[in-house]
């Protein structure tokens, strides 16, 4: 059973902090309120211009700053090494933003994380955010407001779109998790739903799925059997043709599985309100929460 060991002031490090994206998003995370204590960039020890220490190893970050969580921007060829280093050093919350990680590396990282009792989000993930408290990853700060909604998604920008529409409608969020767009992810959709359920402030969940794999079908089964909290969903790729990889490594309809139609059907059977367009999501979720009271 996964647990999100993340508080407002959890000491966070950034692996790959001296890269272009690493720098930009370290600044944005700090602005959001995340306690970024240091970064790691082998061979580039020193300080960023804003004073953030850059160290050689994750071990040092844990020893000197008590780091508990890490956000990984390290390029794909070195992502396996970076993630295993973090887990071995005692990091228990790991967000991998890196895309194009070979699936067998993801599987190794995910299995090692599980054996260590750590939570891995990603790879190819926009990260996670608890508005008003902490953000790990690359989601734009401006889209969030605090409130009662949990958001679970396989996508990046589509998540921003949905979160923005919630915020525009005055509906805030308690936890947003982008599990990542790859076929194999460290935290799967069901586990992400559980992380939302774990939080007392979450009153309803928006689940954003897409074609490919079986994550939504498994989520539907879990929602039907175990959940009482209202869930509203949107599934992207209703018009996607079979056999074409639609941008995400995991977004492909193959061997008759992964069809959006089937996902929508299973989710509907599980009692989930499935939106046909993004713009109706805020209305659906607020109605669902009201009627569940």
């Amino acid at each position: 059973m996964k647990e999100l060991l993340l508080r407002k002031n959890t000491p966070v490090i950034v692996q790959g902090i001296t890269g272009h994206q690493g720098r930009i998003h370290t600044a944005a995370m700090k602005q959001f309120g995340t306690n970024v204590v240091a970064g790691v960039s082998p061979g580039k020890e020193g300080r960023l211009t804003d004073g953030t220490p850059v160290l050689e190893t994750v071990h040092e970050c844990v020893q000197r700053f008590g780091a508990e969580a890490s956000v990984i921007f390290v390029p794909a060829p070195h992502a396996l090494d970076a993630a295993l280093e973090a887990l071995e050093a005692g990091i228990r919350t790991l967000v991998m933003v890196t895309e194009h990680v070979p699936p067998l590396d993801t599987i190794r990282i995910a299995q090692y994380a599980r054996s260590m009792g750590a939570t891995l989000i990603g790879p190819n993930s926009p990260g996670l955010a608890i508005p008003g408290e902490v953000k790990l990853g690359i989601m734009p700060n401006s889209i969030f407001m605090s409130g009662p909604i949990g958001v679970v998604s396989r996508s990046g920008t589509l998540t921003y779109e949905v979160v923005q529409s919630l915020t525009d409608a005055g509906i805030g969020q308690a936890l947003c998790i982008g599990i990542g767009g790859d076929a194999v992810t460290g935290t799967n959709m069901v586990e992400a739903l559980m992380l939302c359920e774990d939080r007392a402030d979450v009153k309803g969940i928006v689940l954003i799925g897409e074609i490919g794999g079986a994550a939504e079908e498994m989520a539907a089964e879990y929602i039907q059997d175990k959940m009482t909290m209202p869930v509203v969903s949107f599934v992207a790729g209703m018009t996607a043709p079979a056999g074409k990889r639609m941008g995400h490594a995991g977004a492909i309809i193959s061997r008759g599985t992964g069809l959006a139609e089937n996902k929508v059907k299973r989710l509907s059977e599980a009692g989930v309100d499935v939106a046909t367009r993004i713009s109706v999501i805020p209305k659906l979720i607020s109605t669902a929460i009201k009627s569940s009271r």
Partner: protein
Amino acid sequence: MYETEGKELFRQYGIKIPQGYTCSSPDQILSCLNNLEMPIMIKAQVLAGGRGKAGGVVTAMTTDEAVAEARKIFNIQVKGLPVRSVLLEEMVREIKGEVYIAITVDPKRGVPSILVSAQGGVDIENVQPSLIATWTLSPFIGVQDYAVRGVSHFLGLDTNLEGKLREIIVSLWNLYLEKDCDLVEINPLLITETGEMVAADAKVILNDDAVFRHHEFENLSGRDLTRQEKTAKLSGINLVQLDGDVAVVANGAGLTMATLDLLELNGLHGGLFVDLGGTDDPGQVATAIKLAISSSFGARPKALLVSVFGGITRCDTVAEGVIKAVGTEGSAIPIMVRLRGVNEDRAKEMLNSARIQFDRNLESAILRLKQEMVP
């Protein structure tokens, strides 16, 4: 990867394959046949399943027959694909049974699994799930005895074949792991009266993201791409050709798909979809736009919709890229740029002064674009 390439990997990993030769032109047929015993199989090398039914796989009993059939196969299309090479292969004799064995990631459990079925030689998609068994394989644990025993028992194999079966499974696993495959599949694996196990077919799908550590496969990646697709790949842009006539440039796979769905809900059809990915380079945006609308890349859309939610990719970067691509002379087709997020206001100003249509709402952007399209 073609069957012959998969078989070469099988051979390297110690999996027995039938004696055979690959001809890359019809004039090689005779010399290949000199070294083969009749009867033989003649197999078109195309990247598609179901070759047999499509006429791409035939048998020949005599050399004359083999020459005629092989020539014929060079001149047909199999599942719409031209045949550039043909595999000539001795038939395996005294076959006692055929089974299916594959290794791939189980999408539900997120770990590699071995799949087996006693229904070898048929399309696995048509096999009832109850006739397929799976065992998970961990990269940290590998192939253990229980998995081999389990597979053997499920397939109803003689226990004295377990040693051979273990070799096949271990070889397949090593290949899967060491070469970073998405799928390794033997269908069918032939079991002969003398207890030999021979891979009659080979399907190996490599993972594109792992090519950085497999220089031996560098030339394989992207060899079937069009010029448009190659340019996109080199620029780190994701491009998918669809059937409709509205080109879509968006950022992120989920948003792109949602945009295409919304077009369809409004009676429009997405043509080419170009996923910018995350970028802060207006040049990259301009390249994406050109790929989507320029006839020099073979694109002939009736309209262009840009659908971006600004984050890493800021709205003003996109605006700058669009202006760069479209230029000052304007465009022959309607263009609608829908931007929301970081630096949206600045982007709006830039587009307004360049006289390019802008909207911050995706639904109204699509409706406006529809109005501008000449029916």
